[in-house]
């Protein structure tokens, strides 16, 4: 192995893309300012500089701490986050909102600093594997917090908030991460057992009940809490996460079948037991029905107005500041996609969806690239969390699925979701760094502590599934070429 065969850090690519990202997001801010303010006052430049400083600071930390990390993730996320702030700022000019953009910028700062701290402190994602069961406990506590009397708060029909003084927070957002860690850790530890023991029924092999038990309990807790909290969007996301990670761990269709059955069961239960959910289905099917449209609470007004907003934008959009996005309730959080669709048009919103598509593809690329099962499962889980968040929100607004409230990652106003998504970015960057950095053969890794447990063992590091030999060859080759797939 010579130096030329080593993977390139590609941090310079990231820097160039990052400058492009800053150009887009600060440019959007400037356009908002030109359209709606008389002049570009100092705050515009201050805010632009803060965003640039944060992004470039993050980049520098990556150069020092994770120089083989994926170079596309940070620029994509900065673009989305910057566009989000610009749109929130634009909506601050309407009667409905005021001063939200500053808060969003503040939360962006907090989130990015938190992500950097996590990146710096954690160094190697494999350490998280030790936290498997602590994560489960943490998830349960986080999900239960909002229904603790005196702490929880009911907003817009979903009880997902926790208030301490003037601060309110959605602990469920952080629970996405801890649950992903638990699923990944548990399955990485037990997949051999699950795979080997099982009963074959027809073409499919079904696992033993006791192997399923811990997952089933986790699923049950999530489901129960979410039904109690009325938060359908997150319920859907947790189910999706659960099924996807199990499928990746076992590569067996039977798990998809089981997962699908669970989802179907969950949906039926929700429909039967939660009036909120039934309403969502009604709205979905009959959005333009007069009776449902005019209903004071739980009507389709918001959905229909959002669709009108999208249609108003058309192919090219009205331009930032020229539409009426504030006609849609919650335009800067749950419905920010409709605001983007109206003012940036199909072209603008389509480009943003493509950014999301690229982003989750990079997450999954990191999952494919990394050599440890835990990392693969965690990165896939986090990617699925991203996919489902975007799909549930955009699909809800475009009537592909019933509308449920979820924050659009990086775009919507709201600190909790922003923090959670930036922490996910930090984790995926670490995983991708581990995936692409050259293997250091010798004592260094193997003696570097518990985090290295057995990972470098070729027998356990390769896939034991059907396609194992071919795949591990491919991975090896890829690694030596330092290539991207």
């Amino acid at each position, binding site marked *: 192995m010579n130096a030329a065969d080593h993977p390139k850090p590609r941090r310079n690519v990231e820097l160039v893309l990052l400058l492009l990202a800053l150009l887009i997001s600060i440019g959007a801010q400037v356009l908002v300012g030109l359209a709606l303010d008389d002049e570009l006052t100092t705050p515009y430049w201050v805010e632009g500089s803060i965003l640039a400083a944060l992004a470039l600071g993050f980049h520098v930390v990556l150069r020092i701490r994770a120089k083989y990390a994926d170079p596309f993730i940070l620029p994509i996320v900065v673009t989305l986050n910057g566009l989000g702030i610009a749109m929130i700022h634009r909506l601050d000019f309407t009667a409905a909102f005021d001063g939200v953009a500053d808060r969003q910028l503040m939360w962006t700062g907090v989130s990015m600093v938190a992500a950097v701290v996590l990146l710096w402190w954690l160094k190697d994602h494999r350490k998280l594997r030790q936290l498997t069961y602590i994560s489960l406990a943490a998830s349960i506590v986080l999900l239960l917090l909002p229904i603790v009397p005196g702490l929880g708060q009911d907003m817009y029909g979903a009880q997902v908030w926790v208030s301490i003084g003037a601060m309110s927070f959605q602990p469920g957002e952080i629970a996405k991460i801890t649950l992903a860690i638990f699923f990944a850790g548990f399955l990485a530890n037990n997949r051999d057992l699950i795979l080997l023991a099982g009963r074959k029924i027809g073409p499919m092999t079904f696992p033993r009940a006791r192997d399923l038990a811990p997952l089933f309990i986790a699923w049950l807790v999530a489901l129960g809490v979410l039904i109690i909290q009325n938060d359908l969007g997150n319920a859907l996301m947790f189910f999706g996460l659960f099924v996807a990670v199990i*499928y990746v761990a076992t590569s067996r269709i039977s798990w998809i079948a089981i997962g699908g059955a669970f989802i179907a069961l969950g949906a039926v239960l929700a429909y039967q037991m939660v009036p909120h959910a039934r309403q969502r289905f009604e709205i979905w099917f009959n959005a333009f029905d007069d009776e449902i449209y005019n209903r004071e609470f739980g009507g389709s007004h918001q959905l229909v107005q959002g669709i*009108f907003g999208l249609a108003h*934008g058309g192919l090219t959009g009205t331009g930032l500041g020229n539409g*009426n996005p504030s006609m849609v309730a919650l335009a800067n959080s749950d419905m920010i996609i409709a605001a983007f669709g109206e003012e940036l048009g*199909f072209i603008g919103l389509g480009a943003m969806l493509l950014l999301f598509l690229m982003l989750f593809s990079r997450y999954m690329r990191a999952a494919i690239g990394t050599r440890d099962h835990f990392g693969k499962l965690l990165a896939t889980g986090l990617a699925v969390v991203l*996919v489902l968040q975007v*799909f549930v929100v955009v*699909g809800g607004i*475009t009537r592909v699925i019933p509308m449920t409230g979820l924050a659009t990652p990086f775009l919507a106003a709201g600190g909790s979701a922003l923090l959670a998504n930036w922490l996910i970015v930090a984790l995926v960057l670490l995983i991708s760094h581990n995936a692409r950095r050259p293997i250091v053969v010798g004592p260094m890794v193997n003696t570097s502590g518990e985090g290295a447990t057995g990972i470098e063992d070729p027998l356990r590091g390769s896939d034991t599934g059907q396609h194992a030999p071919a*795949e591990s060859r491919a991975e090896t080759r890829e690694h030596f070429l330092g290539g991207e797939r």
Partner: protein
Amino acid sequence: MNHAIRHIWIVSVTLFVALFAALSLIQVVLTDELNANQKNSRQIIATAGSPRGPITVDGEAIALSVPAENSPYDYQRVYRDAELYSGITGFYSTEGGSSGLESALNDYLSGQSDSQFFDRISALFTGDSMQGAQVELTLNGQWQRMAFDMIPDGLRGTIIVTDLTTGDIKVMASRPSYDTNELAVHSRDAYLQNLERIEATPGLTPHSLGPIRNRIAPGSTFKLVDTLAMLESGDYDPDTELENPPSIQLPQSVNELENLETGNCYQRQEAEFRWIFAQSCNTPFAEAGMDLGQQALLEAAESFWFNQELTIPLYVTPSHFPEEEISDAALALSAIGQQDVGATALQINMLAAAIGNEGTLMRPQLVDTIRGTDLQVLSQPSPEVLNEVMSPDVAAEITEMMVETVESGTGWRAQSSRFDVAAKTGTAEIGDGEGLVNSWITGFAPADNPQYAVTVVYERLEPGVGNELTGPQMLAMLEAVIGE
């Protein structure tokens, strides 16, 4: 494992493809239908929030559009001296329609009129937001202010001043009034609340202007119509001696028609027409009306534009004289401006204006000029003859009688030291059982070279109060508008 991850990726991309499909349906394929959906108010907002042209008086805007802040609409309509002009400008609401000139001239003000076609085309290419046309009114701001301030708050009063040679309306002030800005608000709740409060005021509706909407009993001012019919018949001239009994028995009726006890009429049982006119005695006019017949009075009334439509360009309610056959008793009462006769304040002003203008009735007009955004004139109504009501000789005879009314008759309070004033007063019983009356004066000056016709009317007054208001206020207006 990687295989499974790729499967997950394929599923994820499939989900995104579904999103793209749905988005392109909404944003590209179905846009027209969605934009036209009746639940979609964005189109309405775009029109409602677009900048409208200003309405100006003496070149200064009394209604204008300014960029709106914190509103779904782009522009906010603002009214200056709102109460002074409320009935004329009307209001323009994004929440509940419009009234007044905002409604009558909406095509021009919004830039949608035919004559602004090329402006619209050029705005399409330059991307400018289309500005509506500017409407300059015939009103005189200073006089309008003076007239409005003279009307005591709490009364229902109207003062109209027209240039009788051109028909230009110089003053049209009335109370009660309201602040049009309160109805131009962009909040539906505030709009409905304000509307309810405004409509709770008796005699006030934000949807039309009292002096051209309300048809009320004209009382003795209607004797100008009788006089025209009498002189035109050839049976009467100003010196004809007429019987003047204190009261007459109405035919087929138990009611009697009396001269007013407070006036001078009961002093003489017989008098020449000019004296009867100046003292406004009822019985001779009632007799003359019955002698001439309904047809003669109807013709005289219609020549002054009773029973006919008029827009100035605000819609003016046609004043009413019965066309269907009525009893002699009703005819006698109608001849003295009661019973079946109803007139707007503007109609009564038109009586004086036609007489002052040598018998030629000019079309009343509120709009001086309408200009496009580039100041080119889109419309400029020139003075228009509405009707040749009478010959100059008859007009001169009536003028002479009206001058006498001011010099030695019921209109003495309108006497000026600077010029001769010609006027006719009127007090009409409303007949609502409360004894309230409408108090009128209408006339013009200078009598030898008439320039302006002035009408002052107060509705629903206690008897005896009105004369102290109408005569002096007419005089004040005339002295203000007629230069040295």
